[in-house]
């Protein structure tokens, strides 16, 4: 059963303060958080959060597509790396993480 719309998205209050502080500092930094249950809000776009997975903080670069999801979705708690095989990755521009 989904959450009632009238309540609005859930987010731990301290995240908003941390996000504001990071944005105003303008530094390239990772905000360490433990709140996996919080919803990703539009004002978090462009910031990098370190979302705790029970062992360490996984860097999560927030983009527009992630708004509405929970932070915990991007920080798995179980280890499965799979096989490297022929997979490849493109180094993305750092504007998202540097925008903070």
């Amino acid at each position, binding site marked *: 059963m989904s959450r009632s719309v009238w309540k609005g998205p859930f987010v731990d209050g301290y995240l908003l303060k941390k996000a504001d502080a990071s944005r105003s500092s303008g530094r390239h930094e990772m905000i360490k958080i433990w709140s996996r249950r919080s919803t990703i809000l539009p004002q978090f776009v462009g910031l990098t959060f370190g979302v705790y997975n029970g062992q360490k903080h996984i*860097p999560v670069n927030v983009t527009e597509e992630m708004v509405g999801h929970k932070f915990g979705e991007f920080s798995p708690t179980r280890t499965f*790396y799979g096989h*490297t*095989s*022929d997979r490849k990755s493109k180094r993305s521009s750092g504007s*998202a993480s540097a925008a903070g």
Partner: protein
Amino acid sequence: MNDRICVAQFGAPHGIRGEVRLRSFTEDPAAIKTYGPLESEDGSRRFTIEALRPAKDHFVARLAGIGDRDAAEKLTNIKLYVSRDRLPPIEDEGTYYHADLVGLAAVTADGNALGTVTAILNFGAGDLVEIKPEGGSTTLMVPFTDTAVPEIDMAARRMVVNPLTETE
């Protein structure tokens, strides 16, 4: 750089005509057939896929020289490798095979050693480079971006990493 890359693994036999299940690890699973003969882990055996068809969550492969179930049973769990040279060259600048990045030395802009790249991960929020410090157990993760990884020198086998400062 890894000379050989694991691209697939045989599973259980399928039917009585020597067909075998095959789990492909390649980006496009069906591309496994295009890599030509596949080698076992020790390189002693080579397998040529004659036919490949998709099943539920795997492929069913018919191999050259494997004609009955008994022969197919002996292949169970064998991992299949191809030479790194057989991967097609990447034309897009700034794109790298994970196999090439794993094993690079990670250093800071000042030249201080951070460790060795152990994996490229993606949990849905962009690619991450996992770095294992020398003698350390806890790994470090940095986004695979121009800001965090400003330079990759494949010839020197090193990657310049700009670790994120952490704030609570």
